[in-house]
């Protein structure tokens, strides 16, 4: 609890920004859904033949899981892409059904005598709708808006995966750091917001149900909503000086690298930067840079080769870099010089064992393997460039068949002596902290995963300073530095921005005479 409060107070400004984004997304999407859904609901009540298929379509959309819906929308023109737009489109689609349903149900439940009286008084259809039907259906419509808004509060959380912002950022950050405090830092305000929205709209709904005395309430509420939307739209549409948008995937090292790119551009090129960190995975980042939704992010050469360009595995780091650089250049993106470290698989042993036995290379492991036990992550056991190839390349045979173990536990299991060899991540912060040693892949079995900044080519043409700024980092982020920064964020709970700031300060001191 106190950790949670400490987190909030140290991330005060960010918390409010994310909360603001969250509320804005819910507000705008709900307002648009009302603007579209109420007319459809009216049509559905009047002309079921037209309205029923529309309501059915909305109800089919409702059954699509939100993450999948984001996935469908991403590649679409206009609504798609990374960021708030796609999130809004999805949120609006979700919010439609409750609004349509309750509008048409509310209209259909009006007493026939009242409608007959309205007709007999010579009301035109429009007057009847505006003065009698809609006011009487209002409690029902508000109930629909309430459901939509509450669904929206929850769904926006997931939209953080596609860079829409909002409190989901904390939840994703917490998940990638396996830190319950950070998850709660996002989840608690989301839950509170949902209850607030639910309770608030319930009051409005009740006010309406009380014989239309809610008229004033609704006018105030509607005015507030319109004002908020207008402000939001204005803020969104206000011409801003062009900002460089830096993206990253959704795990700690990527967030640190994103922050590193952002701060380097701010420091050395003096350009304003927007951070879209914690975007889903490789696919989303690649998509975003193709469409120009982000200007740059850091990719890994081996991932680019196999996952982005679908080429076969290639083990020579130089060849991989050349191929990837060429393929990026051919598709409107520029790959800059590698940062220095490679995020490849690392075969680890305890440092004490390595020292005692003079062990530093994988080719020397075969001699000790028969007396040792090994543990690997499930993925490593299954991958084509995983265990089976490794065993064949280095002639490894362990005391017993390798155990399957969760990646988060594997480092500790090694340090505590439960096993003697594990496959980890070359940049895992725990390697140094738990005094483990990484064996050199001297037969180049693992494909290279050199960290390389990838920039939208047009951005680089407009701002050559970016290239120069990032070039200052090339070759300067060693695996040890990266491990240290990962450790500082993951284990010591330091803020990525502060860690990167300190790193750049050090670098500057070293570089400048």
């Amino acid at each position: 609890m106190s950790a949670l409060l400490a987190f909030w107070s140290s991330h005060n400004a960010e918390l409010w920004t994310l909360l603001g984004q969250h509320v804005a997304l819910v507000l705008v999407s709900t307002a648009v859904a009302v603007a579209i859904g109420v007319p459809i609901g009216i049509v559905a009540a009047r002309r079921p033949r037209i309205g029923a298929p529309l309501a059915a379509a909305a109800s089919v959309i409702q059954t699509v899981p939100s993450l999948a819906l984001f996935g469908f929308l991403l590649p679409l023109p206009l609504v798609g892409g990374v960021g708030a737009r796609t999130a809004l489109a999805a949120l609006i689609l979700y919010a439609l059904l409750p609004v349509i349903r309750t509008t048409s149900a509310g209209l259909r439940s009006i007493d026939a005598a009242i409608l007959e009286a309205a007709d007999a008084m010579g009301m035109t259809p429009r007057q009847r709708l505006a003065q009698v039907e809609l006011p009487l259906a209002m409690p029902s419509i508000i109930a629909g808006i309430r459901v939509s808004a509450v669904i929206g509060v929850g769904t926006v959380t997931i939209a953080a995966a596609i860079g829409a912002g909002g409190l989901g950022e904390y939840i994703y950050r917490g998940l990638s750091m396996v830190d319950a405090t950070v998850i709660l830092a996002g989840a608690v305000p989301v839950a509170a917001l949902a209850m607030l929205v639910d309770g608030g709209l319930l009051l409005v709904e009740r006010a309406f149900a009380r014989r239309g005395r809610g008229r004033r309430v609704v006018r105030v509420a509607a005015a507030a909503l319109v004002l908020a939307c207008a402000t939001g739209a204005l803020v969104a549409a206000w011409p801003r000086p062009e900002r460089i948008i830096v993206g990253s995937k959704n795990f700690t090292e990527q967030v640190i690298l994103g922050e590193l790119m952002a701060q380097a551009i701010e420091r050395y090129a003096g350009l304003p930067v927007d951070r879209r960190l914690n975007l889903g995975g490789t696919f989303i980042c690649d998509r975003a840079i193709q469409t120009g939704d982000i200007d740059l992010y850091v990719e890994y050469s081996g991932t680019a080769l196999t996952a982005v360009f679908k080429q076969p595995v290639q083990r020579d780091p130089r060849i991989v870099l050349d191929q990837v650089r060429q393929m990026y250049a051919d598709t409107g993106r520029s790959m800059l010089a590698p940062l220095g470290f490679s995020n490849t698989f690392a075969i680890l042993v305890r440092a004490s064992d390595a020292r005692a036995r003079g062990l530093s290379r994988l080719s020397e492991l075969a001699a000790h393997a028969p007396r040792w036990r090994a543990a690997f992550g499930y993925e490593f056991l299954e991958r084509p460039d995983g265990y089976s190839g490794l065993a064949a390349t280095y002639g490894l045979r362990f005391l017993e068949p390798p155990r399957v173990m969760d990646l988060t536990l594997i480092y500790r299991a090694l340090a505590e002596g439960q096993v003697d060899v594990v496959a980890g991540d070359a940049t895992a912060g725990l390697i140094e902290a738990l005094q483990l040693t990484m064996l050199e892949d001297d037969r180049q079995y693992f494909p290279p995963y050199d960290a390389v900044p990838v920039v939208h080519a047009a951005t680089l043409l407009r701002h050559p300073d970016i290239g120069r700024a990032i070039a200052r980092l090339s070759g300067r982020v060693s695996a040890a530095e990266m491990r240290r920064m990962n450790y500082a964020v993951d284990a010591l709970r330091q803020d990525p921005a502060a860690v990167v700031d300190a790193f750049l300060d050090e670098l500057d001191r070293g570089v400048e005479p």
Partner: protein
Amino acid sequence: MIEFEHVHFRRGLREVLHDVTFTVHRGETVVFVGRSGAGKSTVLKLINRMIEPAEGSVRVDGRDTRVWDSTALRRRTGYVIQEVGLFPHMTVARNVGLVPVLSDWPAERVHSRTVELLDLVGLPAAEFAQRWPDELSGGQRQRVGVARALAADPPVVLMDEPFGSLDPITRAELHREFRRIQDRVRKTVVLVTHDMREAFALADRVGVLEAGILVAYDEPSVLRQSAHPAVVPLLESCQ
């Protein structure tokens, strides 16, 4: 003046009204009596063009209803129904003033007219104007319904079983009120009911509808002597 000339009305294959002809003179109160489904409400709806005749013609002030603009026709025709149909989201005053508001009367005139009408139907404006329909008794609601129908001073008022759902004492009281008001405002009133006693209590002339056919149309004193097989049971019912 309202004239029905050989009017037929069908709902699907069923003939709801068959060859109905009658005239209602200005300032007259005509009551149509008949069982449920005899076609009483249909007669009313033909007058304000909620529906149109299949054959024959309905004329209001000498003009065929199909020539009338239906909105204009309905605004000069007051309408009171059994379920009253007060708008639950509006105060008594707004309910009463609605047609004048729809007809773009200035606010001041709407207000004074509302006060005048509430006083007329025995619901002092000071006490009732700001109440909500669900705060009223059945009889009070029915009075508001009458006030609403009279609001824009329509020459014609249609009443569809307006006192049907009330207890006998309230009904008798409202009958007295009705005659008092009618003496003052002298509207052309067409009222339908299934209660012969009510017809005799209110009508200048009574029409008897039997399965869509107008079997009798006369002054109460004449009708009391009728030996028509459809009228006799109705007369017996109020002895």
